């Protein structure tokens, strides 16, 4: 699987990317269609715009941390 780093991607491009996926941001956090913060389902923390992971499948948006990645691998296998 190809991994695209978001580290050097402009905020404008990230917002455009989120919009195409049906999300938005208040500039700090990723928001869902209802304007609520998107919560990382594994780590139970809100996902920040500058620290997000977007994974395939049902388009999962997670916080960029080792626990969430490990949990994803547990659920979906090592797809990377």
């Amino acid at each position, binding site marked *: 699987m190809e991994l*695209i780093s978001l580290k050097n991607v402009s905020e404008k*491009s990230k917002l455009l990317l989120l919009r*195409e996926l049906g999300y938005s941001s208040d500039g700090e956090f990723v928001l869902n269609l209802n304007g609520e913060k998107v919560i990382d389902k594994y780590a139970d923390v809100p996902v920040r715009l500058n620290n997000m*992971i977007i994974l*395939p499948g049902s388009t999962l948006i997670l916080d960029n941390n080792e626990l969430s990645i*490990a949990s994803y691998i547990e659920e979906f296998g*090592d797809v990377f």
Partner: protein
Amino acid sequence: MSSDNPISDVAEGVSKGVLEWTKENILSLLQKLKDRKLAFIEESKTIEIVREQYRSGEAKFYQSYINDKKLLFLVKLGLTLRKLENDQERLQNLRGKILQKHRIDGLHIAEFVQNGVLNRYVGILLEKLNSIEKLKEDISYILNNIEKHTIFVQGTSKKSEIIKKTDILVNSHSPEIFIISGFKSAAKIVADSIDSFKIILKDYEFERFSSGEKETLFFKRKI
């Protein structure tokens, strides 16, 4: 700012240190995402670190001897903690996440692995191995009952409190193996308390493991 030429857009972005994507770039990337051929990540290092631990011989070893999925997951997180020891920010971040999600018991299991204590514990079990099934049972037992058999000394712990706790745990549970572990500033507290531990655990054989900033004491009950 963006043109129809993605390459020139990227080049422009690189020259500024920031990448700009056009809507066309994004739609193309999202198609790959949909096809499960691509993922976006802030730092690919995060995935690399986790995958490295999952593929390690140590993880594979414990995969063979731990059937409980949650325990095995915490063991793998412990390996990840160990890998992050040279990156304090990430280490503390992961410790916090484990604590939040799996409470103090879960963090202690991960730290048990991080500090190499589980490896040594298994080594002791192997010295008197009866069967693979018994080994599996014993590994699960120690991980599920870690608070009864192990003291994780904190840098803020008082020597008198640790000694009192040791006395209570040993008298309450009579563990076959009792472990006292400390990291960084806690390692000195552990080392300074050895003589007191030996008095409480007089019916136990003593083994000491010091490596860098880690101090671990194993007490094996004499039969």
